[in-house]
């Protein structure tokens, strides 16, 4: 007989299965498994604590999950495993957002990204890279802590969406020498060599972990739809969209075989001796930017970034009352970007092809001192006081060259040559009033010579309502100081900003977390308000004429010329719900996870209210894995999904506004040790994306024109298999 309500039967069967699992195992070990599955995080309040009582929505992604679900980059880790965070592929390094807010074009500057507690956001623009150019070897990652929500209270600028702290492995967890080769067939190859060892020096125990890596990608040769740019307003003929092409007015309509590539060598070294730790990291990242309005499939349009950082940390326990740490750090960053354009409106110098070259370099050197006061010597009432001082310098140039001759088409813009000292002080008090209740409050003051001091407070409370259940709420704030590049720089096609102010966000969060054995449920809601968002605003024709007359740019005027300026253009209101459920059954044989975020984000401008482009209102992920054990592979299935979302140019540029279809990415991964050869492990995964277009308008047609009324959306690499091998000596 068929069941009348098959879905209900399945659900009941599942619950009974869960209950059976509990009765078979739980009376023995489920509570213990629950304690062992509780993430310990230290990024939310600079103290190690249970994620459930941390003063923000905190998750921790494990190295095992990165491996078993076929994760290749930090961006994929966020997409497939995290709660409330999603990324968006723009074929130029990617973008990241959280809880329904994604600020396209921000270079990742609204997330504070750290490796072992050292910020890796670049000193020039505050940008971060989570894709292949991140320079953080995946095999060296122990876990990734993700704190969602404003987090400037202890970390200062950039932590507006939250922060990502990549914690690398200790030497004991990466002992020996490791050789890795991985390929997303046939377009990329990643080779790496890493090592971990412990030693004794001067009577102190020490350890060293390191990895050197080289990544190269050529392709995929994606097909870009044809766009017709029509008559060039500068030449009066159809536009030229390649160096050698005639005035056809056509862009795309072919596979891009030259302009999709990336190359990134990187290295990371961590040495610890006693309570002192040295951290070195360096990376070079060269990649194309094939989607812009310049020439089609030109390999020279792209960016080259060089980053190097050093950090030295020392901690001493002065007494049972006081613990002091000092952290010295320095970062050097250099970027070179090129943009090739032949159309007259972009290159108004006759029948030549322009190469707009922007070079920038920046560094900072700083020292952070922190004291931790455990007043009752029992972790009940702890004060953290800290101070951070940073000297920084930025320099940049911007020029326009003739691609053929290499000569300047007009004088080089002066660019930036600035240095200053920024300082900050912060304080945090945590108070465990009684076993179930924990309070936390703090504030940070950041001083930057360009702005008035910014104060970012946070108050939070967590309440262990019942066994395994914690309710927590917080009010938190964050800010982002616009970079020197945004406040003071001008380029060939961008004029300097006027009186740019820091962006600010404040957020109210409530989260309920419940543990049943090794199962963890998170249910939360949030309301955030963002002020003074900085955006690259296009100048109207009148504004462009005024800028040219005032000498703010040396570009000769031509109707339709695209000049821009950074401005505090809008506020955003953002609210929604997020949920996550994860755990394991049968002592880790079966693992699962699920997260879903629904959020509304409305941009408030003088012109009215609009939806934020590229940001999905609903997104999440789901995964399950079977850890078969012995010589059998671990089989894992993961998916992440993004709801329909407006494309980046969806503010009236086209009618109707372009939307990207919902995207679902499916990934199947098998991993394990090669039978009879334990030192060799493998990982094989296949990835399939359901939608063939993403949320970015590509090519030169950035608003509807007679010859091209509909926008062309970015193509997606839909199917890819990846094979990786790792040998441990």
């Amino acid at each position, binding site marked *: 007989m068929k069941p009348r309500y098959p879905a209900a039967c399945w659900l009941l069967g599942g619950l009974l299965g869960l209950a059976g699992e509990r009765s078979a195992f739980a009376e023995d070990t489920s509570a213990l498994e629950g304690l062992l599955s509780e993430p310990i995080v230290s990024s939310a309040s600079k103290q190690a604590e*249970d994620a459930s009582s941390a003063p923000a929505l905190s998750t921790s992604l494990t190295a095992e999950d990165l491996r078993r679900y076929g994760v290749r980059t930090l961006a994929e880790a966020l997409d497939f495993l995290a709660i409330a965070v999603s990324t968006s592929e723009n074929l130029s390094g990617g973008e990241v957002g959280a809880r329904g807010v994604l600020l396209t074009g921000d270079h990742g500057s609204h997330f504070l990204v750290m490796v072992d507690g050292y910020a890796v956001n670049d000193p020039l623009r505050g940008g971060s890279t989570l894709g292949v150019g991140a320079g953080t070897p995946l095999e060296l990652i122990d876990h990734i802590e993700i704190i969602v929500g404003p987090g400037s209270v202890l970390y200062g600028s950039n932590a507006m969406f939250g922060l990502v702290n990549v914690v690398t492995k200790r030497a004991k967890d990466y002992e020996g020498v490791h050789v890795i080769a991985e390929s997303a067939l046939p377009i990329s190859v990643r080779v790496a060599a890493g090592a971990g060892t412990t030693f004794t020096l001067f009577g102190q125990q020490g350890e060293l972990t390191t990895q050197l890596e080289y990544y190269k990608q050529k392709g995929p040769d994606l097909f870009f739809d044809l766009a017709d740019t029509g008559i060039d307003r500068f030449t009066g003929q159809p536009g030229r969209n390649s160096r050698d092409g005639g005035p056809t007015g056509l862009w795309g309509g072919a596979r891009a075989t030259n302009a999709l590539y990336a190359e990134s060598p990187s290295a990371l070294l961590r040495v610890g001796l006693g*309570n002192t730790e040295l951290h070195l990291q360096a990376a070079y990242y060269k990649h194309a930017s094939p989607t812009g309005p310049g020439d089609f499939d030109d390999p020279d349009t792209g960016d080259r970034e060089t980053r190097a950082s050093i950090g030295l940390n020392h901690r*001493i326990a002065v007494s049972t009352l006081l613990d002091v740490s000092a952290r*010295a750090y320095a970062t050097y960053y250099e970027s070179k970007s090129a943009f090739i354009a032949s159309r007259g409106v972009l290159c108004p110098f006759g029948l030549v092809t322009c190469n707009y070259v922007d070079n920038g370099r920046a560094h900072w050197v700083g020292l952070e001192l922190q004291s931790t006061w455990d007043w009752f010597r029992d972790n009940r009432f702890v004060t953290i006081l800290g101070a951070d001082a940073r000297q920084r310098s930025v320099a940049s140039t911007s020029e326009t060259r003739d691609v053929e001759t290499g000569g300047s088409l007009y004088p080089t813009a002066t660019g930036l040559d600035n240095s200053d*000292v920024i300082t900050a002080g912060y304080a945090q008090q945590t108070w465990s009033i009684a076993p179930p209740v924990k309070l936390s409050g703090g504030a940070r003051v950041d001083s930057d010579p360009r702005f008035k001091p910014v104060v970012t407070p946070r108050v939070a409370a967590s309440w262990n309502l019942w066994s395994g259940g914690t309710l927590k709420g917080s009010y938190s704030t964050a800010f982002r100081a616009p970079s020197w590049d945004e406040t003071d720089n001008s380029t060939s096609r961008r004029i300097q900003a006027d009186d740019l102010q820091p962006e600010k966000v404040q957020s109210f969060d409530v989260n309920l977390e419940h543990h049943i054995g090794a199962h963890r449920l998170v249910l939360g809601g949030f309301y955030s308000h963002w002020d003074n968002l900085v955006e690259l605003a296009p100048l109207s024709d009148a504004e462009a004429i005024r800028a040219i007359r005032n000498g703010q740019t040396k570009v000769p005027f031509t109707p339709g010329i695209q000049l821009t300026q950074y401005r505090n253009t809008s506020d955003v209101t953002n609210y929604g719900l997020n949920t996550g459920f994860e755990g394991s059954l049968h002592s880790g044989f079966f693992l699962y996870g699920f997260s879903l975020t629904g959020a509304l984000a409305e941009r408030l401008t003088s012109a009215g209210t609009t939806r934020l482009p590229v940001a999905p209102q609903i997104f999440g992920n789901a995964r399950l894995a079977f850890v078969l054990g012995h010589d059998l592979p671990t089989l894992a299935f993961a998916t992440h999904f993004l709801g329909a979302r407006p494309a980046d140019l969806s503010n009236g540029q086209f009618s109707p506004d372009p939307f990207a279809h919902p995207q679902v990415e499916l990934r199947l991964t098998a991993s394990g040790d090669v039978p009879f050869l334990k030192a060799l492990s493998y990982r094989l995964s296949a990835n399939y994306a359901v939608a063939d277009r993403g949320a970015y308008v590509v090519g030169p047609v950035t608003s509807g024109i007679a010859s091209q009324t509909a926008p062309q959306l970015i193509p997606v690499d839909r199917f890819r298999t990846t094979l990786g091998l790792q040998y441990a000596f």
Partner: protein
Amino acid sequence: MRSSRRQLLGFAASLAALSLSRRGSAQSMPVPTGAQAELIAKLAGFDRNFAARAGSKAVIILAAMPGDADSMSAALEMKAAFARLPTVGNLPHEELIVTQSSPGALADLVRAKRAAIVYLGPGFDKQIPAIRDALSSLDVLSVGAIPGYVPSGIVLGFDLVSGRPKLLIQVVQARKQKVAFPASVLSLMKVYP
């Protein structure tokens, strides 16, 4: 320019000054004391000999290395963390903090107090082999705050792997000290032979 160089020199000098002072132990605990206490309280209930060893009340010795601030902090924090737990191994419990560097004296204290658990904070790394030998003939669960203690002969320890607590056990020493966990619990641990 000169002032920024002076600032940098100041930074370097203060860092060097901090580096020279060594009041704390070189090893810090990877797992917070609250989580350690909860794990010990749960695990003790799985030890088949725990109830017989402890009697009506579980006595827990929290050993701190004299003169080591990290070690004393760990002992104080563990005492506070245990105080928040109604039972350890399903028994009422009492904690004693001792500052002890002599393995023999520590073993004597375990005998005298009929301690069920002896917890070693940071700072004991050089004494662990001697402590192992001194405790070998006793019926006691020895627990180390530092993962490195376990391979050297402390029965139970904690590590943080992939951001989650991990249990470590030295099975040979566990047998000597009459600590017996069932296979279902051992399967959750990293076992050192």
